C-alpha cells in the first residue's frame, strides 16, 4: 500500500538530486533546470500533504507556485541571454567580475 511517506520520499529525493545538480554543474542553464526540478519536488510534497490532509489549500498553493515559477523562468532566461550578450559565456567559473 502506497502511503504518504512514499510520496514524501520521492519528493525529497528529487529535491536532493536538484540540489546536487546545482552544486555540481557549472553551466548556468543546467543549474537553472536543476532549480526548476527543486521547485517541482516541493510541489509534489505539497500535493501529497494536501491529499492526505483532506483539504485543498496545498493544491491552491501549488497553483500559485506554478504561476510564479513560469514568470521566474521568463525573467531568469532573459537575464542569462543578456549576460551571454555581454560576456559570451554561461559558465559560472568565468563570471567573476565582482571578485576584485
Amino acid at each position, binding site marked *: 500500500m502506497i502511503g504518504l511517506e512514499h510520496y514524501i520520499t520521492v519528493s525529497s529525493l528529487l529535491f*536532493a*538530486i536538484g*540540489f546536487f545538480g546545482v552544486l555540481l554543474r557549472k553551466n548556468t542553464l543546467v543549474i537553472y533546470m536543476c532549480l526548476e526540478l527543486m521547485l*517541482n519536488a516541493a510541489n509534489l510534497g505539497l500535493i501529497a500533504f494536501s491529499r492526505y490532509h483532506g483539504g485543498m489549500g496545498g493544491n491552491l498553493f501549488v*497553483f500559485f507556485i506554478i504561476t510564479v*515559477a513560469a514568470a521566474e523562468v521568463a*525573467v531568469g532566461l532573459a537575464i542569462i541571454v543578456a549576460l551571454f550578450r555581454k560576456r559570451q559565456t554561461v*559558465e559560472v567559473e568565468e563570471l567573476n567580475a565582482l571578485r576584485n
Partner: protein
Amino acid sequence: MTDIFFYIFSIAALAGAFGVVFSRNTVNGAMFLIGTFLSMASLFVLLEAYFLAVIQVLVYAGAVMVLFLFIIMLLDVKESAARKTSLYTWAASVIGFGILIVGVVAINSADSIREKAASLPEATGVSLKSFGYELFTTYLLPMQVTGFLLLIAMIGVIALSKKAKAD
C-alpha cells in the same frame, strides 16, 4: 494497481532527474527534464490532483521547457567536456546530497507521518469548480497579486531583452 504505477512513475522521475544532472549535452538534459515533469504529472494524477496535472503538462513540460530549449539553441553553448569538475566541487556536492538524504530518512522515520498516512481521507472535490470557487473567494488577494506579478515579469523581460543604447 496504483502501487505499480506509483513505482513506475517515481523511478522514471528519479532517473530523469539524474539524467539532468549527469548529461554532458544540455539539450539531452532538457529532454530528461521533460520526462521528469511528465512523470511527476502522472504522480499528481495518482494523488487525484487532475487539474494540477494538466497545468503541469501545459505550463512546465510545455511552455517552460520550450523556452529553455529555445534559449539553449539560441545561445549555442560550447561543449564543456574539456572542463574538469574539481575534486572539491565533487566532495561538496556529494556531502550536500548526503545531508539531504539523512534529512529524508529522519522525516520518514517520524511517527506522526506514519499515523497520518494510515488514514486516507475522501478526496475533497479537487475539481475545477471548487478550484475556481476558492480562487475567487478565499484566495482573491493572492490571485490579484499573481496577475500583477505576471505583468511585472512581462515588462521586466521586455526591458532586459532590449538592446542597451549606451554600448
